[in-house]
């Protein structure tokens, strides 16, 4: 039962990641791609890792996955911010080039 729920949540996470990847190929502008791709590494990653944790039950493995999840959630926005900020400073146009 627990494993089935975990697998279902992992599948939902993979669907979120797939939608994000479709979004990256659908837009041709850097800023829209950056905005849409944040869906892959926040919603998709969060759902995947919650699925892994539920599938394994309460153990040291799940706790370690949780620690990795928290660290990623702190570092992830910093990386996105620095990439987009450097693009903005170096003068990328928002409209079509």
């Amino acid at each position: 039962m627990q494993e089935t729920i975990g697998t279902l949540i992992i599948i939902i996470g993979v669907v979120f990641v797939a939608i994000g990847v479709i979004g990256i190929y659908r837009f041709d502008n850097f800023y829209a791609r950056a905005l849409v791709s944040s869906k892959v590494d926040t919603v998709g990653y969060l759902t995947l890792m919650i699925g892994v944790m539920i599938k394994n039950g309460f153990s040291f493995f799940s706790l370690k996955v949780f620690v990795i999840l928290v660290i990623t959630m702190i570092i992830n926005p910093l990386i996105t911010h620095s990439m987009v900020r450097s693009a903005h400073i170096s003068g990328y146009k928002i409209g079509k080039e």
Partner: protein
Amino acid sequence: MTNKIYTLQLILLLTLFWIILFERFTPIIIGTGLCIVSLSIWFSEKYLMESTFYELFPFNIFKLLRYAIFLVIEIYKSGISIIPVIFTGTAKPGVVEIHTELESNILLVILCNSITLTPGTITLDIQGHRLLVLWLNPKTMQPTMAGIYIKGKIEQKLKEGI
């Protein structure tokens, strides 16, 4: 929350991290963990930092947990609301300027990171109380209204304390 309770909470949290890394729940591991955590907190406060942890990063573990749950719900909400945009392919990103009333550095950092974590908005720059936000399909360019759309609930939660 006083300084002593805060330090106790920090020690317990870091000891939990130590136990997770060792994957064992025995008295020896807990004892060494408590000793090393207390030592490292004392060492970094005395020699490495200009002020104490309590003054730099004041937080309450229960309030932080409540905020994390709220943030996850917000991330899912905006993540689902972005799906139609991907399938129709209509995106016109714009840069909006918003203002915030938060004072301390740690709260500003958490606000900016939360805005970047929610899909559809990315913080570009911060100068004092002015934030530059990149927004997928901006509903309005006016700073006050844009502020309500982008950070309304998040700022409200942060004002209640963390």
